[in-house]
């Protein structure tokens, strides 16, 4: 009898991604390129505002921390959806899902790869920020771990929903994988408090975990306190969203088997 869950099979898919990275230096550079560019740009903005804005001056590195944490969310989502797209480009789903791997093992592998990609990408940018701007996001300590974890999980949720759309509609919705996350950026309050948003939009902002994380981040950096209320709400929301993401993916996977899409899916 084949085990219902096997880390060996999960590792096989992770290994497929590691082989892909090993064989392509542009892919390795690509992991860190955008987070680093963003960090440099927002670092310069911070330098300017540090002398022109009391709010930014109050919270050293609040903009750099915001951009790095935003990139955690972005990388987490991309890590899931782009890796899934690689399988679609390769027309490999038929081979994968006629092997003993379960869809939830495959999802677990996507999440592991996403974690790896986020650590490489955002980690590089965070380390570079230390010599460039004398700012270390790691000074946030355990708060950083908390924020990172919630944003990873929320990114996975969005990534899984995008994978479901790719499975259902094919690579025609590829641009969704790259652009959809930006739809939630304005309501996440990355660089400004949620109170800045129009009142009618604020309930929407509070319904997603990222806004709670960025408010919590500002509480740590500006008020030097960890807001447990914001954190616990963000955890509950992130868990709900990732459960929804898993359900949508598994439901779509079953539907793809009914519609015969596993052999056809592509452009």
């Amino acid at each position: 009898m084949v085990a219902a869950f096997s880390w060996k099979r999960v590792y096989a898919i992770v290994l497929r991604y590691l082989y892909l990275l090993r064989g392509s230096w542009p892919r390795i550079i690509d992991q860190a390129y955008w987070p680093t560019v963003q960090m440099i740009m927002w670092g310069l903005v911070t330098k300017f505002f540090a002398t022109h804005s009391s709010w930014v001056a109050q919270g050293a590195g609040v903009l750099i921390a915001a951009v790095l944490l935003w990139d955690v969310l972005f990388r987490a989502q991309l890590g899931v959806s782009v890796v899934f797209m690689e399988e679609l480009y390769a027309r490999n789903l038929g081979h994968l899902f006629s092997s003993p791997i379960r869809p939830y093992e495959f999802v677990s592998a996507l999440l592991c790869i996403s974690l790896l990609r986020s650590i490489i990408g955002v980690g590089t940018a965070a380390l570079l920020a230390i010599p460039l701007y004398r700012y270390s996001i790691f000074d946030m300590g355990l708060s950083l771990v908390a924020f990172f974890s919630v944003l990873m999980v929320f990114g996975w949720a969005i990534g899984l929903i995008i994978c479901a759309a790719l499975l259902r509609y094919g690579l025609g919705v590829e641009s969704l994988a790259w652009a959809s996350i930006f739809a939630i950026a304005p309501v996440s309050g990355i660089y400004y408090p949620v109170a800045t948003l129009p009142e009618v939009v604020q309930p929407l902002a509070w319904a997603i975990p990222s806004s709670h994380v960025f408010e919590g981040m500002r509480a740590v950096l500006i008020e030097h306190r960890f807001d447990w209320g914001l954190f616990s709400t963000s955890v509950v929301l992130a868990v709900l969203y990732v459960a929804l993401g898993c359900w949508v993916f598994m439901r779509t996977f079953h539907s793809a088997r009914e519609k015969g899409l596993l052999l056809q899916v592509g452009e």
Partner: protein
Amino acid sequence: MTPAVAVSNLSKHYGDIVAVDGISFTIGPGTICALLGANGAGKTTTIAMLLGLVVPSGGDIVIFGDDILADRYRVLPRMNFSSPYVDLPQSLSVRENLTIYARLYSVRDIDGRLAALAEELGLGPVMDRKFRSLSAGQKTRATLAKALLNEPELILLDEPTASLDPDNADRVRSSLMAYQRRTGATVLLTSHNMTEVERICDHVIIMRTGHIVDAGTPAQLLDRYGHEDMEQVFLDIARNSKQTAGRERGS
């Protein structure tokens, strides 16, 4: 003897389109069986349903005594598959691709198995080359290596020699037959190469528009239709639907 594959009243509808319409057949253990038919006859859909990649609209599939719909993951490790319509990742080498699938199928002694397959299928010189850089013949052999990785008891091959030159096609057939003789595996393949079917298959199932229209050994079919080769039998069935309608078994 329990059949390796037992299919009963299997059907697949995509909305109004009927891809497979209530087919039934069995394949004995150790048999090499060909599933023939014109494009769109329902061969690939049937194979996809046997693998569980496509959920049937109705009917039952029992493989090695297990219901594929209920116990798919008990049976899948004993099967494998290749198709020209499904690729291996192009950016990885043959060795990397095979290593990943060997892990997915929990193959023990992966290096030893890969070395044996490289030897058997003449893949030695290309094991460390990217899949995308291989010729069509090399790609087909690499995909066949993937299909043989776990020493499957049932191999499903969708057009295993499609687009190959006679030399490469012969090498693939020889490798497949050598494997089958060594292990006694059951093979179900689709093919448009009737010489190949006559040469290697013990049993033939012929499909048209989702139905099974005839079945038997190549010799029985040649005799039944009064032709000297399977190509003529195939054309007879494909072009003379009225004549063959009388012979339809419908199951």
